[in-house]
């Protein structure tokens, strides 16, 4: 079909195009205005002082393994009627991370919101799994609801990717019946802990003071953290690695000496054998994150009533510190088509008082990072008695533990390998074929060479940023 009158065609086409220009101009102006207003203090306020949602109807999907999230979700959907959230639990921890890695690499398949432990989030940030949400949750708004220290796990290079949910602030749960039987006092310092351990071993060699988790990276990382130290960090575009710093050596040798003396066991956690040991009273204490009481209630039902929660023993009782073992944040994925809705959801989920109450009561998360929790809600929960812990009001030591976390650092983006290389190298130290100092050195060498092989050329080995 040939064009009969070419010049007329050109004129009509040009006219049509010119006529549509005003539409484009309006569009640009609107989005330009939106871009400048979001992220400033003049953000439109919505329900309960939270930002208003300026987009159209959105259906979000989420992968998370916290139990009973649906209560918070229902409450959120009432506050933001244009947003619905569909939650799937596709497995906890590694089970979910495998799928996240695969979907990220495939370029599709990720949900809008992803739950990730703080230690694994840097890997996903580096991998390209998350997208920044500063536009809707700028740092000023973030710090209104969450302590700045948590930015080490939810942000990198100034880009905020999500919000923190529960805290893994370390507590010590102990068996009151064992302590009473052998006349042990609840240790306030690590020196007292070691004395208790020796006393217990002398009285009954089949019971150990605690079990060093030899297959869980968060344990050695946590005990070093609790001493005010760290093994790695991220700053200014570089990954810092130093496993042999003095704090790390002090802490690891403290545990190594006790393992050698057999007053402390070194074993695998999260196995059926280990839960049985806890029930049977083969371990007098468990050092773990603040969420462990919930775990214990579900997995060691046989010893209900015998456990108590205490704050951690300190290296210097006049200068308490604490570290974290675990805890998870909620992040917005890079494949999300509704990042504004997802950002508002993760903000509200982890900081709104109504949501926090559900997370504490229904999801059994004892301590949450949001300022609304520590400042407003926690005081009213202090009086709750927990039958599993013999009626103890466990919120108080748990919140105290949270308040003692005053340092933070970013984990390496290869935590899976850090953990597996730790396991193989540590077994040699446990068996006595190498010293614990040597273990730290060899482990560090393995991690550094692995990261180089994976293409990381921005490593600083042997020093740590402040």
């Amino acid at each position, binding site marked *: 079909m040939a064009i009969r009158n070419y010049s007329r065609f050109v004129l009509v086409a040009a006219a049509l195009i010119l006529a549509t220009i005003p539409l484009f101009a309006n569009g640009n102006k609107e989005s330009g205005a939106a871009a400048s207003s979001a992220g400033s203090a003049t953000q439109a306020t919505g329900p309960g002082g939270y930002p208003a949602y300026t987009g159209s109807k959105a259906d979000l999907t989420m992968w998370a393994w916290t139990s009973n999230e649906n209560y918070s979700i229902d409450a959120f959907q009432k506050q933001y009627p244009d947003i619905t959230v569909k939650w799937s639990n596709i497995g906890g921890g*590694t089970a979910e991370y*495998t799928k996240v*890695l*695969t979907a*990220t*690499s*495939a*370029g599709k398949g990720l949900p809008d919101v992803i739950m990730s432990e703080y230690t694994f989030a840097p890997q996903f940030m*580096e*991998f*390209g*799994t998350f997208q920044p949400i500063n536009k809707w949750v700028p740092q000023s708004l973030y710090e209104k609801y969450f302590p700045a220290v948590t930015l080490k796990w939810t942000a990198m290079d100034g880009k905020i990717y999500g919000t923190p949910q529960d805290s893994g602030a370390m507590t010590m749960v102990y068996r009151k019946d064992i302590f009473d039987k052998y006349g042990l006092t609840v240790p306030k310092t690590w020196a007292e802990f070691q004395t208790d351990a020796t006393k217990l071993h002398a009285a009954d060699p089949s019971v150990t003071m605690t079990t060093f988790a*030899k*297959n869980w990276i968060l344990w050695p990382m946590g005990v070093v953290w609790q001493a005010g130290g760290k093994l790695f960090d991220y700053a200014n575009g570089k990954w810092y690695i130093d496993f042999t710093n003095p704090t790390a050596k002090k802490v690891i040798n403290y545990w190594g000496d006790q393992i050698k003396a057999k007053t402390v066991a070194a074993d*695998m956690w999260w*196995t*059926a*054998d280990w839960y*049985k*040991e806890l029930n*049977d009273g083969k371990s007098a204490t468990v050092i773990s994150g603040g969420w462990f009481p919930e775990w214990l209630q579900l997995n060691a039902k046989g010893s209900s009533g015998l456990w108590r929660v205490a704050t951690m023993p300190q290296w210097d009782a006049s200068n308490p510190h604490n570290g974290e073992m675990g805890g998870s944040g909620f992040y917005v994925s*890079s494949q999300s088509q509704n990042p504004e809705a997802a950002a508002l959801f993760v903000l509200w989920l982890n900081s709104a008082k109504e949501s926090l109450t559900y997370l504490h009561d229904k999801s059994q998360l004892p301590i949450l990072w949001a300022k609304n929790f520590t400042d407003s809600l926690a005081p009213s929960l202090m009086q709750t008695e927990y039958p599993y812990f013999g009626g103890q009001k466990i919120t108080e030591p748990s919140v105290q533990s949270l308040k003692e976390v005053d340092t933070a650092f970013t984990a390496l983006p*290869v935590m*899976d*390998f850090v953990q*597996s*290389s730790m*396991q*193989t190298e540590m*077994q040699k130290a446990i068996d006595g074929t190498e010293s614990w100092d040597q273990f730290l050195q060899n482990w560090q060498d393995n991690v550094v060479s692995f990261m180089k*092989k*994976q*293409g990381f050329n921005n490593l600083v080995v042997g020093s740590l940023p402040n």
Partner: protein
Amino acid sequence: MRKTSTLKAYAFLAPFLVFFALVFVYPVLFGGYLSLFGQRGARMWWVGLGNYASVLTDPQFWGGFGLPAFLLFVQVPLMLLLGIIIALLYERIKHSRVYRLIFYLPYAMPGIVAGLLWAYIFSKSMSPFVPLLHAFGVKNPNFITYPSLPWILLIIILWEWTGYTSLILYSTLLSIPKEYAEQAQLDGATHSQVAYYIKIPLLKNTVLVLFIFNAIGALQVFNEPWILGQLITLSPNYTPAIYIYNEAFSYGAFTHAIAMGLVLAAVIFVISFLFLRRSTREMNVHA
């Protein structure tokens, strides 16, 4: 005439060929293409044969062949020997059908269930063997340690596969004409002499095929060590297959893992090919 019969043949083969092409040929070719790229997250960049160079010079990858080599040189011959003995016994004993069923059952059991079972058997606190060992004065037995791990795997794999192997050998024995054995017995041979001089040589071809399949299985071994990984920490390269899995699903380096997988496949192919060629040459000489 011939044309229609060939067409008919292809028509019958078509469902399998389509399936095979989609599920096997296409992924291998596409994977081979992807393995020419470096990858991190959704970013990819051309590296040509860089992945392969890195795999071939990786001591971790080749170090992982230790356990498969152990299985190849210890477990496979042992299992074939046991299989032959059991198959010969199937012919001799009464109620052999019952025994054939019982020994076959481990093969029919799903791997996960078997894994859980063995985890309990080797558990320090819940194993049914622990009271037995206590009676012999062994306190706190620790079944699974790094040195004992290959032998534990040996036990588990033998338990899983010997029944199946013996059944296949038994079916080969059934195809041996009875006249051979009867003739030998008339000449005064004992049962064991019949077995050794007549039956076992005739099993050679079956044994060869079984050896190759089991060798491939040994080099690719994944399930059994993986299950034991719940009870003892394994190094990331404990077997090449576990190393490949970790590379892909724990570190997200998919294209590098593909290169590893293809190198492993090439190694297995070369070993199988050499072995097959050597044995067929022997067979042709004897024939």
